[in-house]
């Protein structure tokens, strides 16, 4: 029999022929348990659907790499694609690429934690493929920044962001949501944050919708990289699905799962929703659909409805905080832009206030924008905050109008409301902004929360959320000293990386910033976020 077969050149060993034996490779070793214990019990018989082995995985990724890096280093380089991008959009990409790199990087560790935690060899195999995917995505985003830096006329912000991001208060929210929530905590919570919500829910609007918007703003680099990244994400979504499959059959597990899902959704929403919406609507010159509609389609309907609907037969429902998130997807990006502009010296890129054309678009798609956020932006425009000669910062107007920026202890997002409040939420003396701010005291410190949902997480496990936020760390620091200490200046050692305009002249320097004589304060102890001397 053997010779007959061997005459045939078709004797081959396909990836599937090897994969089908993987489930037998594990064994129960006495005393060997995961170093990342879980309150959940995993089904050791869980299978995974992609059925890759290392060799086949690498063959596939090599081909994708050849296409992506090939286009970038050949065709697009010759067309100088990095020089043709709308500047406002390229600046937004400084923030987005750094944010996304952080998430991809942390996911290497998060996926490794998961492959240690589960007991099914096939599941481990699927997670390990994700580990290498995340190395790939980290490298791709590093390459994207390097590429922009080599061609775009203002490389600062693409070049040394891995240093000056630590002086960026908005980075702390990203690090919490797209990094720490992916690597710390119960492995199932990690999977919920990383795979079930961040990847299955938010990478579609972030990565797919953004490619359309990027191209509309002259940026062919981002779609080339992002679509190649997204081609791996389906596998990660499947990994999340299989994590759920491995726990939902156990009735004991179900007592935790709904709450953990809601917590994960809220943390991811607080990081993604305002940040992506801000990048889409305030970073684009040529816009597509309003973010609120994109969010509704991808997050509310596709993920909250169809994707989560698959789990309803197990008793797992869509997160109950989805409607609250939906409200924030309408106004949140405008508040987030206001916070970003107010904190502009730290954000690592250049931004500008909406032009009259932009204002028309915002009012058309978000009725009420002009009387709320729009008024704030016009006031800043009138005060000439973009011009260093005027020696004034946007935070001065906020402080004068009793709008103080706080940071949520749990999600680390900025709490600032310049848009219409949620129906039923009213401004009080304690909460003059009329947003969902909550404050509590614990272990000798005061803690602010953006919402009931973050407060709930803190009250359940306060020991998990103890870090100082930006305003506490830099309490009493003059603004230029923070920028100087965290490396947010260009190669002349004086001009800031960040700027509140897109002009090539009148760039702010450390001296200009120091001349504003403003210091950071901790609003929870000082009652204000900034003080003028």
């Amino acid at each position, binding site marked *: 029999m*053997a*010779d007959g077969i*061997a005459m045939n050149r078709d*004797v081959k*060993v396909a990836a599937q*022929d*090897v994969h089908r*034996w993987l489930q*037998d490779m594990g064994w129960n070793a*006495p005393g060997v*348990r995961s170093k*990342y214990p879980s309150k959940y019990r995993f089904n050791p018989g869980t299978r995974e659907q992609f059925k890759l082995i*290392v*060799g086949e995985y*690498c063959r596939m*990724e*090599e081909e994708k*790499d050849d296409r992506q890096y090939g286009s970038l280093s050949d065709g697009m380089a010759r*067309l100088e*694609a990095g*020089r*043709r*991008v709308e500047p406002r959009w390229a600046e937004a990409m400084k923030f987005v690429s750094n944010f996304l790199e952080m998430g991809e990087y942390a996911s290497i*560790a998060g996926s490794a*934690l998961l492959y*240690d935690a589960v007991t099914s060899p096939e599941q481990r195999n699927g997670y*390990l493929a994700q580990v*290498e995917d995340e*190395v790939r995505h*980290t*490298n791709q985003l590093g*390459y994207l920044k*390097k590429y922009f830096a080599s061609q775009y*006329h203002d*490389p*600062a912000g693409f*070049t*040394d962001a891995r240093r000056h*991001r*630590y002086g960026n208060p908005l980075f*702390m929210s990203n*690090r919490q949501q797209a990094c*720490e929530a992916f690597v*710390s*905590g119960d492995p199932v919570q990690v999977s919920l944050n990383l795979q079930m919500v961040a990847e299955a829910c938010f990478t579609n609007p972030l990565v797919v919708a953004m490619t359309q918007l990027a*191209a*509309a703003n*002259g*940026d062919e680099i981002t779609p080339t990289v992002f679509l190649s990244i997204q081609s791996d994400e389906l596998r990660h979504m499947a990994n999340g699905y299989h994590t759920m499959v491995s726990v939902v059959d156990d009735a004991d597990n179900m007592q935790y799962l709904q709450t953990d899902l809601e917590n994960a959704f809220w943390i991811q929403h607080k990081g993604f929703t305002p940040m992506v919406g801000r990048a889409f609507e305030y970073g684009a010159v040529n816009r*597509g*659909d309003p973010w609120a509609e994109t969010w509704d389609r991808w997050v509310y309907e596709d993920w909250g409805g169809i994707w989560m609907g698959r789990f309803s037969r197990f008793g797992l429902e869509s997160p109950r905080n989805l409607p609250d998130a939906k409200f924030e997807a309408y106004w949140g990006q405008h508040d987030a832009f206001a916070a970003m502009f107010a904190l502009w010296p730290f954000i690592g890129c250049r931004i500008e206030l909406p032009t009259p054309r932009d204002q028309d678009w915002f009012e058309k798609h978000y009725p009420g924008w002009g009387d709320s956020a729009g008024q704030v932006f016009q006031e800043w425009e009138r005060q000439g905050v973009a011009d260093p000669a005027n020696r004034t910062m946007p935070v001065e107007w906020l402080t004068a109008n009793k709008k103080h920026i706080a940071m949520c202890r749990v999600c680390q997002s900025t709490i600032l409301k310049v848009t219409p409040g949620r129906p039923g939420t009213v401004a009080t003396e304690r909460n003059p902004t009329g947003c969902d701010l909550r404050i509590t005291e614990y272990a000798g410190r005061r803690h602010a929360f953006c919402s009931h949902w973050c407060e709930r997480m803190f009250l359940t496990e306060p*020991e*998990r959320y*103890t*870090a100082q936020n930006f305003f*506490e760390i830099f309490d009493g620091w003059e603004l230029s000293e923070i920028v100087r200490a965290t*490396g947010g200046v*260009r*190669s002349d050692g004086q001009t800031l990386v960040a700027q509140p305009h897109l002009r090539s002249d009148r*760039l702010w320097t450390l001296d200009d910033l120091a001349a504003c004589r403003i210091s950071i304060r901790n609003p929870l102890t000082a009652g204000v976020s900034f003080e003028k001397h």
Partner: protein
Amino acid sequence: MEHAPDFRRTLLNPRFDTHETVLEERRAPLSFAMPYGTRISEYEQVLLYAQPNPDWIPGGLGVGGWATAFPGGRGAWENYTTEAKTTDWFVFRDPEGRWQRPYVSEKADEWREIQRLITTTATRRSYRGIDPEWTGKVLCGHLGALALHDYGMFMALAAPTRDCLVDTLRAAIVATALDHLDNAQMIQAEKVFLAQVSDQATAEIAPSKALWLEDDTWAQARRVVEEIWGPTYDHIEILFAMHVIHEPLFGRFVRDEFLMQAAPLHGDLFTPRILGYAARGAEAAHAWIMELFARTLGGDPKFGPYNRTLMHFWAEKWLPLSLGAMTGAAKLGSATARLRRGDGAFDAQAAQRRVCDDWLDRFGLLFDKPIDIHGALRKASVQAREEAA
């Protein structure tokens, strides 16, 4: 979309083809980093300082602390998860610069070669000369047990992948974890191939698992793997135990000294080529392991002496275990009738001495005082004889 006709053909749209004033001449990323070579490399640009450490983790550039901890308060990454110390974790580099692209490219090449090897072996019927006992007992038994050994090594690298404190090391560990899993999968691919062309062969894992779980030949090796995978929590100690001690001793003995040498004696020219990829993975790991333990830790200006003492302590802990595993695996030397004839085909003791000599050459300088590895080997052999008696 709004104004769609204006930007339908964006790439060549003159609307975006503007020349802006260049604001910044510095275009190379990581101006703040110390390059490994004369200038910052592509490998460093796409990876280095991606790890977001606060400044209380040596080398970190951040401020404050982690915002989300594990239940109980352990932060995302902590100094106390390893006994090793350095003034700067970001000094570490993989000398081969294996970021994702070159890694998957090399691995894809290896599998293309394997597919060609399988086709060639099948069509030329090169498998016909393989000793049936070798096929049945060693390739489909013990070689499969080695696959489980590598599977355990892959699992043991999960914690270092999660816990290590710097990006460049994390990428190196991931590549090595994939290599170990791939070693196991390549062996399984060989078994699947042999099962198609040889009546003595089976692709079943069960016979190999029985050897791995129950046979004395593998008992000590399994103990080492489970000891690293399970109760060892220090992620740097795991790397030390695996790639300073166990792989260069046990792995080298079983792969290089036994399987690759004994296979041709049994007419098997296929297995050494498959195992060559595992040897390549081990050498790639050796390159970055030496960078980690000799330069980053052993050469640290402040903690170098401390780390060399720590490594000596770890060596004393792990050497007896891996030498015991090597002694146990010496039983492979009588696995077939041809080997039992004792015609000098495989001298286990001489092979063990060679492996130990090589180990001293490669690793001896890591430690603050000499290590008597041959004495430790003798002890392990005596202990093995006593246990057998």
